[in-house]
């Protein structure tokens, strides 16, 4: 508000500068003087208002009489006031001064009790356990605290002491707390479950592999040896009569075993431990090779043949040769 008034005044000031030079008490001059005088009054009022507002703290102090001086000054000014505009300024000054006066009065009232917030604060700091530092004994904890530092539980200490001044209702809280306690538990369980199977799986794998490897190589060799054993035994029982190949390999109870027997027997022949030949009826026979004949047999020409068998042929063989039992006993079940 003040600023806008100043702007208003400025052009007028310039405009009426000419009139200022005429001090004569003519009717025109009197009006001009009036304008000038009024401007002066307004300016002085504004100064007074400024004084009161800017120097508030000073004027509050009971030692000064500044407020009274301002009021006396205002009284003097008011004698020359004729128009509403100056009177409005006077009223504004009065409002501001009264406000200050009220505060001074209330201060007077409490002055009698001599309560000093500064001293109060000092006492509180001591109570809260302020560590006042000795000369130059700062250290890293002293960041920002020029004269001592408050311990961390300073406010807690104070709060505990003043709790008894309050009749606060204790807050109600559910004993079991909020629902947040639930979710973490299931997560742990699932993790544990996941861990267990993987361990067991690992354990299983190596043993299985071992078994497989065993059955692969050694099983075949063992089988071949076993069959050789059967062959030799059968041959020794009756060295002169030939052993029919079909009677030897066919297992009347299992086609699969028959195929296995043929497979294993082929190894015997490959290795030169047994030989196949056709008898007088042109039927294949098998006989173990004698110890001495082994080298001779290896030097002679090798012949190869492919034997195929189907379940139909297998059945025909059983019927034709009337094979009741297998010569080669089925292997022990532990390998399978």
């Amino acid at each position, binding site marked *: 508000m003040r600023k806008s008034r100043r702007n208003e005044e400025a052009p007028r000031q310039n405009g009426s500068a000419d009139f200022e030079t005429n001090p004569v008490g003519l009717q025109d001059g009197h009006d001009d003087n009036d304008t000038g005088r009024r401007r002066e009054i307004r300016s002085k009022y504004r100064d007074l208002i400024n004084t009161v507002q800017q120097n508030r703290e000073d004027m509050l102090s009971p030692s000064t009489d500044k407020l009274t001086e301002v009021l006396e000054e205002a009284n003097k000014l008011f004698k020359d006031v004729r128009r509403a505009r100056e009177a409005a300024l006077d009223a504004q000054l009065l409002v501001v001064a009264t*406000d200050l006066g009220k505060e001074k009065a209330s201060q007077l009232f409490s002055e009698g*009790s001599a309560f000093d917030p500064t001293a109060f604060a000092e006492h509180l700091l001591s109570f809260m356990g302020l560590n006042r530092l000795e000369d130059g004994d700062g250290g890293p904890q002293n960041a920002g605290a020029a004269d001592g530092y408050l311990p961390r539980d300073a406010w*807690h200490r104070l709060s505990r002491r003043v709790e*008894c*001044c309050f009749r606060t209702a204790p807050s109600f809280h559910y004993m079991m707390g909020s629902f947040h306690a639930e979710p973490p538990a299931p997560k742990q369980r699932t993790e544990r479950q996941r861990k267990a199977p993987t361990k067991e799986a690992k354990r299983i794998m190596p043993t299985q592999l071992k078994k497989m490897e065993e059955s692969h190589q050694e099983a075949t060799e063992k089988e071949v040896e076993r069959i050789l054993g059967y062959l030799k035994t059968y041959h020794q029982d009756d060295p002169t009569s030939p052993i029919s190949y079909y009677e030897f390999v066919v297992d009347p109870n299992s086609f699969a075993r028959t195929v296995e027997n043929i497979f294993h027997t082929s190894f015997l022949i490959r290795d030169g431990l047994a030989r196949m030949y056709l008898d007088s009826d042109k039927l294949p026979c098998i006989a173990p090779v004698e110890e001495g004949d082994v080298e001779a047999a290896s030097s002679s020409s090798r012949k190869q043949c492919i034997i195929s068998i189907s379940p139909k042929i297998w059945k025909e063989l059983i019927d034709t040769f009337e094979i009741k039992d297998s010569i080669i006993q089925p292997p022990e079940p532990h390998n399978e």
Partner: protein
Amino acid sequence: MTQRKRSFGSQSFSQNRRQPSSSGTQEDNEDSTFTQPSTSQVQRGLEKLTPAQVDQKTSEVIQYFLVKDQKKVPVRRADLVKHVVKDYRNIYPEIIKRAARTFEQVFGLKLVEIDPKNHTYILINNLEAADKPSPVECPANPKLGLLFVILGVTFMKGGVVRENVIWNTLKKLRVDSGEKHEEFGDVKRLVTEEFVRQRYLEYVRIPHTEPMEHEFRWGQRADMEVSKAKILEFMGQLHEQEPQIGRCWL
């Protein structure tokens, strides 16, 4: 107009019309539609309900208060009626009466209407505060200390104090309203908003001040909850003087 007269009953009509007009401007729209039922209405309402129903509704009101009290914000009658009482509003006075009795007898708390015009309630401790701090080492809320300082200074300054006095005092205690405090965070917000919302303090603007200034006063909750005598006693201990000061305002 005539229709309304019939529904409310001729006796209670004038009684009911008076209340909303006085408080309607300041309250929620919700509450202006809620008119305190008369005794006869309450009687009639009670007859229609079983005791179990009334007890159930009373319990709900009690639980609502207890949970709301956690934040120490006063409960407004409008909220209570809208969220809890609902259809039982015709026996509202009876429910409040029973709730207050339960609070006293079961919980040792007192249900107080701190603002008869706006109908807001708080819970305070019905038991006398202990003379000394409890021997149990339970952690105290540090905000209590801060509140004590403000209330104490305000009290010693005659019940009203300019905000600058408070801010300066707090600054000496290493609590700066302009900075974030380690313990309290945004101090200005805590003091001028939270404490005011909880009705511990009043933060009123002083007219004709440029720039704008406020003053602090004791709030309605502080008037009920805080013992001036005990504050004086502690201050006396601090100053190691006889507490004769401030007696005129007691």
